[in-house]
């Protein structure tokens, strides 16, 4: 089962994502170049962090029109799991796969330090191995991470339980002090209506080793587990023709 990691010019967390997939959870990871039109049979797509196209115009605004993104959008609309981390989250919002937008941090500073996020929902392919309420320690590294959206969008995200991660303090409370960028309602990550497309600003792929912490491993374990689950569901159907052929004569 292959996991595709998209490389835009300016992506810089692609190798960390690769390592999180292959060394972290022992699955096959392949890079997908932004000019390609082929997802190469990947079962899930990761959009890594970085500064795609130099963040020109707006973060993620140009990457969204990459040839590979046409395929990624079709894959997502078809219900394929897609995770956007940091710049990848910005790309997903610009592409309209996730609502809202990420604007300049309220501090106007680039923030690069560990934060705590609480897992709000576990019924996505990227959070199923966590418990609701788990508090994870992950780094952030962004200048444009302030999540904003119209009030009606925020209300819908809350009522449809689509806020997946929230910035919290060590006690798990979503306080103003725990919010590193001014995101509305301390939102650190959300999902789409189908719950298969998830975007978050913190970097789970940077905390998948004993040295740096392992709080992000669950994201990748969840993905592998959920892909295995869909394979088991699909397997009998795929076997059916063989059985029919075998019993036909």
């Amino acid at each position, binding site marked *: 089962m292959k996991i595709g990691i998209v490389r835009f010019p300016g992506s810089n967390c692609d190798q960390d994502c690769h390592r999180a997939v292959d060394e972290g959870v022992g699955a096959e990871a392949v890079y997908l170049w932004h000019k390609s039109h082929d997802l190469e049979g990947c079962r899930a797509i990761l959009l890594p962090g970085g500064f795609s196209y130099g963040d020109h115009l707006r973060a993620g605004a140009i990457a969204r029109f990459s040839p590979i993104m046409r395929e990624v959008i079709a894959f997502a609309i078809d219900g394929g799991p897609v995770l956007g981390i940091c710049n990848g989250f910005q790309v997903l919002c610009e592409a309209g796969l996730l609502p809202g*937008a990420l604007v300049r*941090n309220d501090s106007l500073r680039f923030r690069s330090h560990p934060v705590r996020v609480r897992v709000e929902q576990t019924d996505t392919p990227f959070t199923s191995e966590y418990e609701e309420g788990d508090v994870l320690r992950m780094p952030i590294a962004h200048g444009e991470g302030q999540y904003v959206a119209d009030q009606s969008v925020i209300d819908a995200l809350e009522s449809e339980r689509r806020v997946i991660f929230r910035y919290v303090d060590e006690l798990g409370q979503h306080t103003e002090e725990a919010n590193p960028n001014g995101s509305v309602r301390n939102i650190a990550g959300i999902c789409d209506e189908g719950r298969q497309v998830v975007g978050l600003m913190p970097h789970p792929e940077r905390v998948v080793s004993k040295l740096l912490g392992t709080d992000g491993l669950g994201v990748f374990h969840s993905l592998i587990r959920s892909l295995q689950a869909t394979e088991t569901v699909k397997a009998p159907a795929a076997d059916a023709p063989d059985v029919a052929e075998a019993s036909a004569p």
Partner: protein
Amino acid sequence: MRFDIEIQVTPREGIVDPEGQTIEQALGNLGYAGVHHVKAGRLVRFELDADDADEARSSVERMCEELIANPVIERYEVQIRSPETASP
């Protein structure tokens, strides 16, 4: 005909504009009193070949909606100058 296009992109009303707020605060700190509602944005200028001003405008508006502005957070204003008005 070639038109001069100028697009001003600014944060939508109700969307936080930390850059504008910071400029406003800094101006206050420098002693400039009476500065209110500072909005910081982006200016995009280019030349565009089109048959007439209407065609130029509709083309530029599509560009704004698709790429130059993000309607979720930004509003834009388009100014089009035709060669006649531009020449001395």
